[in-house]
């Protein structure tokens, strides 16, 4: 007798409430796939979008926060300096769930310094690097994560070794590090959900898709890899990517073995996916700072301005 109930999550919100405005990225761009996963994960976990703040730098990937979680505040900052903005905002309001989305150019080229210092501080921020190995928005120059020997449309090869942001994050303080492939819906979902559950650094591997003028329309690349196995994926541009999924016996609490697993995969020209590292003990920067539990942003005047007596005391000392 009741009309068919709309599907809602535990907060009573529909998946619609987790979407953003229409994407202006290219059809088939892996960034869109990640945006979709973000929508699903936040919806399914029933996260209050009004308690989330989105952060990004500049790039195609960095535009994507406009395309999900429309009920969340978002800040699309300047190129490569998202970590600083996110840090400031989360200091201002530690109750926010911070979600940063950037690109490999944004993070590994111009932004590697801020990225490393962010990691070092262990800021509680979900940090997603949508890594396609190139600068998409400026039409396809190499970023600092491009593989040695990978080629631009013009044929120019990349001669420099890639920064592995996962390894950096691992080595310098991140407490959750995972990698997936934008086309592996299941794994990506699982990882994003874990990250949401505890705050994390992540890096999603993707395909370079840029063109010079004409941008072909691509279908999403989709793949499912069993645990412990390797699959070779063909990208839109014809290049190939060997993905190895961590097996079930992998222990993600051991930082050193995580590092060597990455080294090992690098040697075999494989990209390791899965949850690489988890550390639940380490205090976040907010804890290190011994900050009040309430958001600083909305403290009442009584907590912001010391009393006249305090001023007198100080003046007396200075006499």
């Amino acid at each position, binding site marked *: 007798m009741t009309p068919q109930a709309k599907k809602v999550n535990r907060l009573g919100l529909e998946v619609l409430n987790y979407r953003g405005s229409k994407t202006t990225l290219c059809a088939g761009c892996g960034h869109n796939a990640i945006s979709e996963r973000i929508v699903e994960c936040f919806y399914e976990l029933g996260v209050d979008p009004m308690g989330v703040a989105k952060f990004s730098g500049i790039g195609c990937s960095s535009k994507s926060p406009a395309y999900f979680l429309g009920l969340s505040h978002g800040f699309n900052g300047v190129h490569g300096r998202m970590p*600083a903005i996110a840090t400031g905002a989360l200091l201002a*309001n530690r109750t926010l769930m911070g979600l940063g989305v950037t690109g490999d150019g944004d993070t590994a080229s111009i932004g590697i310094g801020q990225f490393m210092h962010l990691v070092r501080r262990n800021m509680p921020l979900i940090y997603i690097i949508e890594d396609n190995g190139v600068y998409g928005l400026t039409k396809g120059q190499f970023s600092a994560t491009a593989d040695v020997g990978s080629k631009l449309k013009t044929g120019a090869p990349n001669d420099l070794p890639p920064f592995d942001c996962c390894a950096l994050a691992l080595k310098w303080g991140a407490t959750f590090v995972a990698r997936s492939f934008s086309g592996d819906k299941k794994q990506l979902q699982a990882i994003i959900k874990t990250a949401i559950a505890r705050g994390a650094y992540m890096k999603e591997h993707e395909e370079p898709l840029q063109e010079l003028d004409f941008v072909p329309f691509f279908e999403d690349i989709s793949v499912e890899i069993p645990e412990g196995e390797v699959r070779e994926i063909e990208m839109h541009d014809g290049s190939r990517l060997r993905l190895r999924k961590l097996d079930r016996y992998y222990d993600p609490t051991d930082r050193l073995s995580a590092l060597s697993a990455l080294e090992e995969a690098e040697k075999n020209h494989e990209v390791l996916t899965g949850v690489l590292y988890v550390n639940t003990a380490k205090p976040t920067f907010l804890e290190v700072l011994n900050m009040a539990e309430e958001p*600083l942003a909305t403290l009442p005047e009584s907590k912001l301005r010391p009393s006249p007596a305090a001023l007198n005391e100080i003046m007396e000392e200075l006499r």
Partner: protein
Amino acid sequence: MSTLEVSPAERLSGQPERPAINEFSIQVATVNGSGSQTANSVLMRAIFQMGIPVSGKNMFPSNIAGLPTWFTIRTSARGYIGRRKEVDFLVAMNPETAREDVMQLGAGAAVVYDEPLKLDALRSDLHFYPVPFDKLVAPVCPEPRLRKLVRNMIYDGVLARILSIEMDEVHKALEKQFGKKKAKAAELNWNAARAGYDFAAATFTKTDPFRVERMNATAGKIIIDGNAACALGAMFAGVTVVTWYPITPSTSLVESLMGYMRRFRHDPESGKANYAIVQAEDELASIGMAIGAGWAGARSMTATAGPGVSLMSEFIGLGYYADIPAVIYDVERVGPSTGLPTRTQQGDILSNAILSHGDTRHPMFFPSSPEECFSLSIEAFDFAEKFQTPVFVMTDLDLGMNNWMSDPFAYPEKPIARGKVLTAEDIGKLGGFARYRDVDGDGVGYRTLPGTRHPAAAYFTRGSGHNDKAQYTEREDDYINNMDRLAHKFEVMRQHVPEPVTAIREDARIGLVAVGTSDYAVRECCDQLRDEYGVAASYMRLKAYPFTEHLKDFIRRHERVYVVDQNRDGQLLGLMRLEFDAELIAKLRSVRYYGGLPLDARTVTDEVVGQEGL
């Protein structure tokens, strides 16, 4: 002005004796890292405690130890606390510079010096007081390791004797300096001072005309440096997120703030910090954090100097264009580039006003004293949130790092003003909002803070084109509307910036305009013009940019207006040129000093006199 009690043993080169009670300057020449700072502060404070207006200026090198340093103390019964170029009383401790220091003195000056330097051979028109520092220090400080430190305190004792500074006050000042906890150190120093005093008493017949006499001009006053005063201002303004990267001369601003916040801004119950102070990895990060925090609703600030501001340029443009509050302290030093990191200048005025690519304008506040460091800081935080924009508080090394005599700070009268922030309830009532719509005609839109629990509360902030709903746009009309709103907002600010301080002389045909630490020199200059040249001059000290109508009126009512700039290019004048009508510009003249030392009155007076053809 008054008769001298001591008459010089020998008449020096026909120099007329100048009136020299409470009206002279002392210079201590030493090397940095030798612990002279304590001796100098104690000296200054003892004079201050005797009720005599006094100022101290530290001229130190940009390294940590071993290079020449000069500290000058000026006493002025008339209350002039700006720098004075002439040195009356030299304490020559540094062998490297002693010769040049002595040669530069005017005839009739006095010199206390380290005996082995044999400076008395250099000139015959000075009063010399040789002191065997090493000999004196050994008995009072058995531990050789500490002697270098304590040695300087000896000249405090010597000077106390020669200048009639009361040893009781020296003692009090020492106790103040070291506090209860370092009683041992205080005692050691006190013994050294006494040794100096006793030596001088036993050895010297006073021949110079300089001495102090108790007054009552400093009662209730405090001594503080501008950086600490800014820190206090920020704390009482309710700052919550402080981000910084160390750089001279702004470092001590944040370091004092840390100390004060630790004492006064932890929750008494939980012991937790009601603030966050973060040393960032560089200035790009510190301003980025401040902008992020300001966006999320914190009262945020950062403190830096020229090189830092240059690095902050991109982010401050974002703050302007996306309407985000933040307070940036720029404690100016000598530029360009690394420049002279330990010298003072007002060299960032013009570039800060239009910082970052594209069309931008940024408000600036110009405190001239510790009191204003305090009060204008509070205004700046309110202003930043009220107008949702980055605000510069412009001080300089002279104000920031030197100790100043000041009236105690008044507790702020007005409550903290957080500007236009909509809560979930507000949104509920309004049914929604448009972030950048100029609802009130002041160019300032309403904002919500992230975390506001209302489905219509969120908006998306970006440094790219946005319409009044904060949506992405590349439309010509949207862009122009937004830029016009920002320009209008800047015009509205004119009505809300702190008003200038004006001293109109009804008979004045000329006027002077200045900001910040130029104040002391300009006020003294006005007196010099009056007393020495019989010229009346009005004076307007601006506290802020954008300029207000007052300034235009001031220019209109005078024939010529001298704009005083502590920089090469006349930057303050340049800002006026950018916006004033030609008839006003025609009246503007430039007085510029850019040598890196605190501005002194004589430099200004000479320049005005020259241009006036007096």
